[in-house]
Each structure stands twice: as C-alpha cells, then as structure tokens.
C-alpha cells in the first residue's frame, strides 16, 4: 500500500542491494540494551564453553587473547530497522574457540550467555565455518562497554540481537532453545533477508 505523500529520503546510496527489506542505512552506531550496561573488567572476565550443564573449558582474558585473532568486516542489521555497512571487527572465530576446547560438534545448537543474564540461541551451522566470532575489538579499538565490551558475540548475517553483548559463555544444547528475546516475541532464527523479526514472521 503506497502511503500518501511519502517519498522516502532517498538514500542516494549505491549499496541498496546490501540493505535488507524494511531496513535503512545509518552511519552512527545506535545502542539498544534491555537493562543496565554491565561493567566487566578484563581482569575479572572469563569465558566458558559448555556441553549442556558441563563446562568443558574456561579461559581468562589473557588466555582468550592468546587464541588466533581474526579480522572480519561485515554489514550488520538491527531488528529495530537500522543497518550499518562495513563494520570492522577483530576477535576469535567460534571455530578456533571450539578447536581450543577440543570440541567438534556435540550438538547442532548453541545458546550464548552474557554477564547481564541475557541469552540468545544460534544454530552451530551459523556460528562455525568462519561465520561468527567472539569480538574483542571494533574499528581497531578495544570494544566499548556500550557495544558489549570487553567481548561480544558477532553473528553478522542474523539480526543483531543474536550478537550477544558482554558474552561470557557458549553452551551446546540438545534442542534449539529460545533465549531472552526469542522468549519475548522475537523470531527463533532472525534472518534479516527474510525479515524474520517476530515470532512466526
């Protein structure tokens, strides 16, 4: 349905083929968080990989930073409708985390957990094969606290609520278990190109 009198700003962008339906391009980096912004010092920071309830490996900040570091520049898409192009990240690929833990693929699904109690589910297939990382730097600088620092999950091909800020654990689960927003009306998978914003979109 055409809206009377609406023409749109006209982005003048040559990148419209990189903006998923219903999204608009922004240059700044909006911050959206459901609660207070946690304060986590690197000296206190720990990261755990679990299979079900069982911790398999725990890394300190220094140990985690000693893992292979990978750079990744990607477009990101927030369900609130903004997209940001060419965001540059550096961190540890999920593949390298699992390899260091001596894990293959014990199950097909993972839940990411965060310091603030947040969680989100992502299939292993969307985390492995170089698709996702735990990011420690943004645009060459330590990740700001507002954007999830010291470390956040980065799953750039899914809506950005999947890229859990202040991440501190990845847990293999038997089934695809909904996380925080997935239990509160948001889509279980969240593919921006299919506009999977809310449950059953």
């Amino acid at each position, binding site marked *: *349905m*055409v*809206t*009377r*009198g*609406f*023409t*749109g*700003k006209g982005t003048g962008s040559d990148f419209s083929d990189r903006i998923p*339906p*219903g*999204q*608009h391009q*922004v240059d*700044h*980096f*909006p*911050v*959206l*968080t*459901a*609660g*207070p*912004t*946690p304060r986590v010092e690197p000296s206190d920071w720990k990261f755990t990989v679990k299979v079900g309830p069982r911790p398999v490996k725990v890394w300190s900040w220094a140990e985690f930073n000693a893992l292979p570091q990978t750079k990744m520049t990607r477009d990101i898409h*927030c369900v*609130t*409708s*903004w997209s*940001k192009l060419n965001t540059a990240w550096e961190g540890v690929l999920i593949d390298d985390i699992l390899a260091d833990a001596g894990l293959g693929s014990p199950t097909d699904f993972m839940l990411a957990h965060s310091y*603030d*109690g947040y969680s989100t589910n992502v299939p292993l297939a969307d985390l492995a094969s170089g698709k996702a990382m735990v990011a420690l730097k943004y645009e060459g600088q330590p990740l700001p606290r*507002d954007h999830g620092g010291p470390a956040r999950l980065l799953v750039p091909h899914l809506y950005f609520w999947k890229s859990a800020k202040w991440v501190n654990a990845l847990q293999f689960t038997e089934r695809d278990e909904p996380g*925080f*927003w997935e*239990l*509160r*009306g948001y889509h279980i998978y969240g593919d921006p190109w299919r506009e999977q*914003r*809310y*449950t*059953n*979109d």
Partner: protein
Amino acid sequence: MIEDGALSVSWQTSAIINTIQQTATIKSFFFRLAEPFSYTAGQHVDVRLTAPNGYVAMRSYSIASSPSDTGIIELAIERLSDGEVSPFFHDVAAVGDEIELRGPLGGHFLWPERATAPVLLIGAGSGLAPLMAMIRQRRALAQSVATALLLSARTKSDVLFAEELFKTEAADPHFHLALAITRDCPERSTDFDRRIDSAMVADVVGRLPAQPGDVFICGSNGFVNIAADGALAAGLQAGAVRTERYGG
C-alpha cells in the same frame, strides 16, 4: 509475557483520526485500528511507510495510550530533523490518512499489573510515551501501587503530557512526579533544575515508601546509562531495571 507461538502479528491499515501538537517537537497521532488488539502498557507497534517506487521505511513507536482505550492507539512522535519517518508524520500525515502498522510488539518493557512493590519510571522527552501508557493503565485499573516518575525535559514547555501528569499527581497521593528541567527554572520545589544524575535518582527513590521492585527507563542511550547507573547506586537490583533506548 510470552506471545502465543501459534500467531504472527500481522500488518493492518489504520486511519489517523486525530492529531495533537503536544510540544514544539512532539505530536500525538491517534489511529483507529481496523483490527483492534489488546496490549500491555510499554509495548510498541511497527509502522511501515511505502513510497510510490516501492521503497519501504519502517520504525518502531511505543504506544502512549492506555490499553483500556480499545480500538484507538496514540503514538507520540518526536520530529527528528534529520529523520525520514518522523518528518513525514509531522509535515505530511493528516487526519484521514491510512497508515500500515502492526502490534502489539515487545515482551520485556511491560507494566507489571500485579506489582505490589513501588515502581520507578524515568524518562526523557518522547521517552515518556511508554511510561505514560503505564501511568494511564495504572489509573485505568485503579491501582494504588506507589509510583514515581522522574521526567527530564529542556524547558517546562517541552514536558510531554504536562497537564495530565500534574492532574494525576494532584488526584493520587501514591503517584509522585519529579521534573528535571535542564535549560529553565522549575517552578515546583519538588523538581530539579539540572540534568539527571545519581543523586537525583536516589532523591526520587527516597520519595517512595519502599525500594522499587521495578524500574523502567526510556530515553537516549546516554540518558538511560546515567539513570540506570543511578538506580544501581541507589541499591536497586540490575534485574529490576528495564531499559528502552532510542534506536537509529
């Protein structure tokens, strides 16, 4: 609230039936829903505008009206000068226009209808919208749970829903209103003449009969961070603090 997994929230066409210029930059739009829905105060709708060339712009707006007003919802939209959708609403949209929207959406920033512990609301500018829905729902349900609103605005004339807030405060001994007026002098001794800070949050918490069990904060990211840090410094639990920040 967990939404029914069997249902998706579908788009509908709704007509603008009234508009009110609330402040210099905030205008209320009243929509008659073709398919009325029930909702909880704090929820939002997505609004979708389509250009003749097929370009679609979508934004989320909190519902400002009380859920008891079935069939009509109010959105209080702030005009962002560099925006794309809010200037359309302010400069083009008129009574009788049909707009596509869908809702209710969001399952976290929700008024606790069964709350017994006091509730603290903190907002800035149009961030009052979801908090106003809560205040209106509380009133519609004749709830007496002690509730305080700390509201920041540049000047007195920038206070959204000012008259209704003053009336609510006058009529309800369990509702406390504190304004933080940042570029003007407040008239009331219970208000503040500065930007929000931790001491201000602690002061307002102290006006409640007990520690709040729920805190709702809505505004820009910088404002929300200061307010949330203030709530934590006042001894409130992080898990009790729910935030909504303006997106891009």
